[in-house]
């Protein structure tokens, strides 16, 4: 299917401030939401099916087409596309921390919906991960726009 040049190839002014604009924040929130819910539905589907996931590829295919896993996979397709877009707007080493809140939300979902036992070490580990990637979030979002000569978002 041909793609209109305007969608992928139009140039735009470079990002001038470290603050993410509203559209980028909204997109980041969408990336987080689709990732957390997608992973949650995947886990729900895997834990509520009887097929053993061994070395046979057929078992994986059967699991993928189960309803919950299919819903989770669909959400993860949206996550993939929106995250790719976000990666075009900001550094890889910036996008990772911005979307890190998903780790905490996932731990909370696991605790309350799957009654998973989360030790204090795991909670501390999760908190340290979030602190670490939040520190990275204090830095400039895009450090390569000028040097790489790439096209920027509008």
């Amino acid at each position, binding site marked *: 299917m041909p*793609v*209109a040049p305007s*969608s*992928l190839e139009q140039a*735009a002014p470079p990002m001038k401030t470290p603050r993410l604009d509203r*559209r980028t924040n909204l*997109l980041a929130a969408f990336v987080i939401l689709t990732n957390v819910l997608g*992973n949650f539905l*995947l*886990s729900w589907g*895997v*834990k509520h099916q009887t097929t053993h*996931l061994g070395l046979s590829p057929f078992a*994986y295919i059967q699991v993928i087409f189960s309803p919950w896993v299919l819903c989770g996979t669909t959400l993860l397709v*949206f996550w*993939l*596309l*929106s995250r*790719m*877009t976000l*990666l*075009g707007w900001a*550094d*890889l*080493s910036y996008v*990772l*921390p911005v979307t890190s809140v*998903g*780790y905490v939300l*996932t*731990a909370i*979902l*696991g605790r309350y919906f*799957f009654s*998973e*036992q989360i030790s204090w*070490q*795991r909670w501390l*580990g*999760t908190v*340290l*991960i*979030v*602190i*670490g*990637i*939040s*520190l*990275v979030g*204090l*830095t400039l979002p895009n450090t*390569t*726009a000028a*040097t*790489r000569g*790439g*096209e*920027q*978002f*509008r």
Partner: protein
Amino acid sequence: MKWWMVFAVVVCTAIADLLQSFEMKRKAVAAEDLRPGRWGRVLAGVLQRGQLLAAIFFMAISFFAFLKLLSLADLSFAVPVTAASIVAETILAKLILKEKVTPLRWAGAFFVATGVALLAA
């Protein structure tokens, strides 16, 4: 087996993210194309770009390894432990993508590594 799956997820995720970041910086998707009804066009655009297809291939391997990991471990373990890819990707982003990794970003990577070690304890 559990840690082999973690290794596969981390390595494949890092490769996939590097490919995506490089290619999407080269040609970014416009914000207007994220409206409902235009996602199909974005997907079609992605499927025409070789580096993004390669990224999807590595993400698929990561996905299947992650499915296997979910069958072996708790969700609250599986998702945070794969954050180890962040450390690897920060290093590779500096070396390959030439991003400016400041001391603050390195400190963040250290916190992440410590957090992952705690999860594995």
